[in-house]
């Protein structure tokens, strides 16, 4: 089973990279972008077939390593 993990900066945490991307978009003529937040995606191939167990494993991985919960939120998406 596949787990796709979306890691994003928490609300209120400044994202200087997002800001730079917004400015670059602006320079390209995309004037309608009011904010950009940059995150990352981690894709995991899991041996586990049971969605509940797979989610629990991915949760633990996020808490222990994949996300820094001081500054980041994570969302887990499972795919059979």
């Amino acid at each position, binding site marked *: 089973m596949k787990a796709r993990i979306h890691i994003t900066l928490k609300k209120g*945490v*400044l994202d*200087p*990279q997002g800001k*730079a991307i917004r400015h670059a978009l602006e320079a390209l003529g995309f004037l309608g972008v009011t904010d950009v937040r940059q995150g990352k995606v981690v894709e995991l191939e899991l041996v586990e077939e049971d969605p509940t167990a797979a989610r629990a494993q991915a949760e633990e991985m996020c808490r*222990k*390593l*994949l996300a*820094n919960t*001081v*500054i980041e939120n994570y969302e887990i998406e499972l795919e059979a």
Partner: protein
Amino acid sequence: MKAAVIVFPGSNCDRDAAVALEQATGRKPAMVWHRETELPRVDAIVIPGGFSYGDYLRAGAMAAQSPVMREVVAQAERGVPTLGICNGFQILTEAGLLPGALMRNAGLKFICRPVDLRVENSQTLFTAGYEAGQIIRIPVAHHDGNYFADPETIDRLNGDGRVAFRYVAPSGEPTDADNPNGSCDNIAGIFNETKTVLGMMPHPERAADARHGGTDGIPMMTALAAAAGGFA
């Protein structure tokens, strides 16, 4: 005093830290590779700067999970003085020994230059060689030095004398213009609750020889050498 310097793949200030420590203590520190599961008996631990694991995932995130870090955390929790410099600071926050996180510099640029720091608390085993309020000049060299913590944590750090150093103007004022990386409250270094763990972005080991252009890092090494006696 005997110190240990932890070496990760990608550490690049380990040798400088060792030289500065040997100069202060008269003894060569033990260089401990990250795969070790045991630490020799030491009086102090230094986690040096660099780019451990190429800053993959987040700066310090992989190193914090290294085998040796379990032992570092155990010793630090036992009270062995532990100093994390630059990437070492990032590793200590990722390992949960210090609160908060080090994020990408607000200006997005890698910054490498001397900065003025105000000593906020001189009553610790790392900073006893300075006066409170003293301005010292130490180089920074980092891309991810933007210290962030939630407002409650910042209040607690400020209230409990746990801010070690702040980026300031030469006059001693912590201005926005003199905050090189966007850190909350101009914070350059913090202590743990017992003030036996210090994490800081500036590099005291790069200001430990007159030929470096400054020697303001020496009092930290000598204070550490003088204070750390009872553990080895």
